[in-house]
């Protein structure tokens, strides 16, 4: 049955390409279109992953494939008023605001504001039209097509976030990117194609904030490419709080040159099936990579995080901390892969995955994986699965705290390691609030 769905999904998305191409209005000569056409060929050949594929062993994508989603560009767009977007934003700090509706840049909703000279913050489609020279050496140069999902994104790549920070510039304010998705008449396929380039000695922080507008099913299939040049510092926050009917797949592909720092924060609340692939490759010495993840799931949600750090060069370090809180019938998957190549001596790589199961029917499949080919390294990984500690709960309750609040306190304490690493103070508060809202539990204030 799966294979039938897999096959017909391929056919469906390939068949819609002609309609998409017609919609492009003469832009079919841009460099982007060659990339699209190559990816379409890949899409014809590649099948959507099944459970037989080791990387997708625990995540069944058949429910996604049984719908015929229509790429956003050839579907009807919902009309969203500016006031309506306010409720989705992170507040109480200054930011450059970029809004995408169904993966398409919404200029009227965005407030990019003043940017230092040379900095580009824009939609991919506009840049591809007006200034292709600034992006053609980056787009699709990092992310290799290895399954039908990223072939699908690439074949239909049209719009998405472009951030280019030139050499020596420190962008003071973070960029808040609101991705609002909504199905109206059609089942929408939102395909943001994002690019973040931080030049030498530059610094930038991006908050990618995913939300649903309405409660209908749709599918976000995202690719994000990140370039951190020498000495650059890139903070990429992702918070995903979409409705429980939506599907969300993102692949982040980052490359780091020497002395650069890349911090990736991956905080997932919503979605029926969520899959994140976060891959970083080291292309220089003294690189630092930090991955922080927090996934909360309830109902029948399925959250799958795959992380990969490729230690290809010596003297680098990576640190990874992923925590999960699973309630109801939800299912969590974690796969953390670290490869230390033969040349990568003096590597330090640490990884931890901890999960709490709050209900009898929640399940977790975790696989921390180390592949080490160099000898002068320090690597460790740890994984734990457990439940809220009864004795701790008893201790708190014996001090007159009601049961529900005691539980929440323990959850808050568990999540604290990850939340504390968030550098933007107001963001920390709001993420904390979202945790309890999502789990429908009594809130514990951030200290």
């Amino acid at each position, binding site marked *: 049955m799966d294979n039938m769905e897999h096959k017909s999904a391929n056919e469906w998305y390939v068949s819609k390409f002609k309609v998409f191409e017609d919609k492009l209005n003469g832009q079919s000569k841009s460099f982007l279109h060659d990339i699209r056409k190559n990816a379409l060929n890949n899409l014809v050949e590649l099948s959507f992953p099944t459970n037989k594929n*080791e990387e997708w062993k625990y995540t069944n994508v058949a429910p996604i494939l049984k719908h015929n989603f229509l790429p956003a560009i050839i579907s009807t767009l919902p009309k969203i008023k500016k006031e309506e977007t306010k409720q989705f934003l992170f507040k109480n700090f200054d930011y450059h605001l970029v809004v995408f509706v169904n993966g398409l840049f919404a200029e009227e909703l965005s407030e990019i504001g003043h940017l230092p000279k040379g900095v580009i913050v824009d939609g991919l489609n506009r840049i591809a039209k007006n200034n292709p020279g600034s992006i053609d050496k980056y787009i699709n140069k990092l992310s290799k097509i290895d399954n039908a999902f990223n072939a699908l994104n690439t074949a239909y790549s049209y719009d998405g976030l472009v951030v280019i920070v030139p050499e020596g510039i420190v962008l003071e304010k973070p960029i808040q990117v609101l991705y609002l998705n909504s199905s109206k008449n059609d089942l929408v396929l939102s395909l943001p194609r994002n690019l973040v380039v931080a030049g030498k000695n530059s610094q930038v922080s991006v908050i990618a904030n995913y939300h649903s507008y309405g409660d209908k099913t749709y599918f976000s299939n995202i690719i994000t490419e990140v370039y951190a040049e020498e000495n650059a510092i890139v903070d990429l926050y992702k918070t995903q709080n979409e409705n429980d009917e939506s599907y969300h797949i993102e692949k982040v592909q980052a490359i780091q040159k020497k002395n650069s720092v890349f911090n990736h924060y991956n905080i997932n609340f919503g979605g029926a099936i969520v899959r994140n692939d976060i891959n970083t490759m080291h292309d220089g010495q003294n690189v630092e990579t930090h991955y922080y993840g927090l996934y909360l799931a309830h109902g029948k949600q399925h959250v799958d995080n795959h992380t990969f750090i490729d230690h290809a060069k010596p003297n680098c370090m990576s640190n990874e901390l992923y925590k999960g809180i699973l309630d109801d019938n939800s299912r969590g998957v974690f796969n953390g892969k670290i490869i230390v190549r*033969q040349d990568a*001596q003096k590597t330090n790589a*640490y990884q*931890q995955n*901890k*999960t*709490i*199961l*709050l*209900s*009898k029917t*929640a*399940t*977790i*499949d*975790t*696989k*921390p*994986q*180390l*592949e*080490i*080919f*160099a*000898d*002068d*390294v*320090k*690597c*460790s*990984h*740890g*994984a*734990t*699965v*457990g*439940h*809220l*500690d009864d004795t*701790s709960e008893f201790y708190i309750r014996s001090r007159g705290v009601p049961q529900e609040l005691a539980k929440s306190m*323990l959850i808050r304490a*568990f999540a604290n390691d990850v939340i504390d690493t968030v550098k933007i103070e107001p963001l920390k508060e709001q993420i904390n609030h979202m945790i309890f809202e999502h789990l429908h539990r009594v809130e514990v204030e951030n200290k």
Partner: protein
Amino acid sequence: MNEIEENKIISEDTNSDDMKVLGDLTSSEYKWGFITDIESETAAKGLNEDVVRMISKKKNEPEWMTEWRLKAFRYWQKMEEPTWPNVHYPKIDFQDISYYSAPKQKPKLNSLEEVDPELLKTFEKLGIPLEEQKLLSGVAVDAVFDSVSVATTFRESLKEKGIIFCSISEAIKEHPELIKKYLGSVVPYTDNFYASLNAAVFSDGSFVWIPKGVRCPMELSTYFRINSQETGQFERTLIIAEEGAYVSYLEGCTAPIRDNNQLHAAVVELVTLDDAEIKYSTVQNWYPGDKEGKGGIYNFVTKRGACRGKNSKISWTQVETGSAITWKYPSCILQGDNSIGEFYSVAVTNNYQQADTGTKMIHLGKNTKSTVVSKGISAGYGNNSYRGLIRIGKNAEGARNYTQCDSMLMSDKCGAHTFPYIEVENESSKVEHEATTSKIGEDQIFYLNQRGISTEDAVNMIVNGFCKEVFKELPMEFAVEAQKLLAISLEGSVG
């Protein structure tokens, strides 16, 4: 919420002098390589139904056994050779292997004097003369010499206790009811490619049955030896501990130098009923191939134990220093409530050796516990993978697992990999996993050098310390042998 304290292992700069000294250390030839000149009866190469029938007939097996083998063979023919492990080897031509080899039939023997003196000499060279074993250590040895059980000691005294310890072919004839009940009940012939092959062509092996409430008074032991050239050895071991019984079983192996790769696909099945315990220890030191990675044994083994009864326990301890390729996952199925599974392993890969080993702990019963301690040591061009599965089933209330896998790297060309799978479906369970990988501590070597200990001895000391947690699980005689083996397999490897 039990949290793991991250182990941080200190590693220091490579000291090139040390490397040189260690590099100069002799890379010893395989110490236990020799070929015993005994006439052996070997089947022609190739595998088909006739060969399966022939093996069955040679062993005078009853009709039902022949049928079982044929069923397995037919199933095997439809299977594909698995390619997922993290090991690389040329494709095996299963038609280029002889599936049966036995020393020429001799009349049944009752005492050691009647055994072929050549055979006895072989065992002496191995350092485990039967007499000595018999007299000094009180170990009953079922010596398997190229697939046929030739001498069984201490059987009389075991018999008094009601314990059955014999070759599996004998058991098929004499205890068909037990064989019918348990053979293939833990590892069915459909289980995997090599288990099916084994079921079709297994030559011999050991059978142990411990009756209700009996504690086996001595450690039972089988020494395997692969002797004839190009003869795959397909052992089958079945151990059953009835209610409240206890047995400790040792399995040890050495093999002579060979150029052609030899396939070894054994199956071991353990069954424990209520309150029973089986302790299974292995020291594996088959021919690992020469320094260029030529030759050596392929060790593809299926080992599995079922804790069927309440409060039962199965404990696997293994020291894997030999074989060109080691690929095995001794597993425990924890069915009975409160049952316990343990896995302690040391795996060493030197030169071009490869190992993909680990365990599976399947928690099904309530309050089941498992402990996994795995130590991997990679040297030369060796690749060592730990692959483990911890599964906590829906009904395994209060299940508990602790896993620790540490790897030590001794050269810049070797690899250490960990692939732990953790699947938890019960919220009341607790699972902990931790792994570290680091280089052998140069500062530790330096410290010992300072105190007048040679680098060679220092490395041995450090490695022994690293493996201590596993060695302490081995029976005493084995622990001594294991330490020696480790020293030999790592000679000339640091740097």
